[in-house]
């Protein structure tokens, strides 16, 4: 029941919300190019380190094999990730949806940030790294983003 305790504690932390909720009218799903943006702190290398406070991001090729989960927090389960990367980064599920014609296509490159940031205003993500990641997704002609936490 650790998660229940954590949800109670972490659910009350400060967060940043925009005054107006942004809204993009989606394309039909069967025409949409889909990318995953996760906050799991994934890296495509054996370096499993990601410093608390680092609001940067990594690029994850859709066919990357050697992924590492580098998130700094010890407060969540990592065994599920070791057993099956899709439980965090559901790339195989997206490829299945594309093969079935339910989504249009799968992005070539996906993105990882790291959550549980000490700076709840996320100023760097809002003003710098977030827009930089958005530019890369736009260059890949992505329409729809599925965000996954840990």
């Amino acid at each position, binding site marked *: 029941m650790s998660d229940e305790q954590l949800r109670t504690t972490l659910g009350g932390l400060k967060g940043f*919300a925009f005054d107006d909720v942004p809204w993009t009218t*989606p394309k039909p799903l069967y025409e949409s190019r889909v990318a995953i943006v996760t906050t799991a702190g994934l890296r495509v290398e054996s370096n499993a380190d990601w410093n608390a406070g680092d609001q940067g991001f990594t690029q994850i090729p859709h066919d990357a094999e050697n992924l*590492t989960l580098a998130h700094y927090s010890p407060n969540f389960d*990592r065994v599920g990730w070791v057993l099956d990367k899709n439980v965090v980064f559901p790339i195989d599920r997206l490829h299945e949806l594309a093969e079935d014609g339910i989504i249009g296509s799968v992005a070539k490159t996906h993105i990882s940030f790291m959550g549980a940031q000490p700076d709840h205003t996320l100023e760097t993500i809002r003003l710098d790294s977030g827009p930089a990641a*958005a530019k890369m997704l736009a260059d890949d002609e992505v329409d729809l983003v599925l965000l996954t936490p840990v």
Partner: protein
Amino acid sequence: MGTLASVLEHAGFATVALSSIRGQIETTAPPRALHCDFPLGRPLGKPNEPEFQQKVITAAFSLLKEPTGPVLVDYPISIEDDADAPLSCVIPPADTSDRNPAASEALGLLPAWRRTQETYGRSTIGKVVTAEQVPDMLDLFARIGGGESWEDVGFPGDPTKIAADIKNFYEEAAISLADTPPSARRAESWFVNETLGGKTIQTARIKMKEADVNFYFWYYLLPMTQHHEINTK
């Protein structure tokens, strides 16, 4: 994550966020979110169950039909962690009678850890040390338990990251020792409560806390829900 979703939506993408902590998603109010009461660290719910994962994604994408936002919907299935049910694993003995018992225990786990690597091809070790260095790192934590200052034992990096490498090593070894793939937090509870390695870090954490070491360095040595305050004196 809700804030990040809004940044991307603002940039022109339609977004759907899976939520793991409802309070945070309420606060950050992204355009569309599906809250899933699944174990933290398993946002798609069940490893190696593609049909279950696909249903979660389908439910998330169904939010794209909503005409206005913010949209926050609860997924109807909940999954609890199993922190209260530690794994029961037999640790293979290592022939290292000259080592401290925790280091010897970790040496005995190395073959199991390597089997997990061969089977699944993923590790979360490598923040500071390799799996092969874990026994040596337990020597250092044991010295803190014995009364030395953490700054004097010669850690090759941030002790919280080394403690994470040790914890992750044990959990990954446990995958190959358990009869079935461990549900969420079973291996964590086994490590903290049943192994010498976990007890060594717990003792060092308490010693550092008692010595008024900077909060960060003792607090993040173990998951916050596994801080068991015992008398070390």
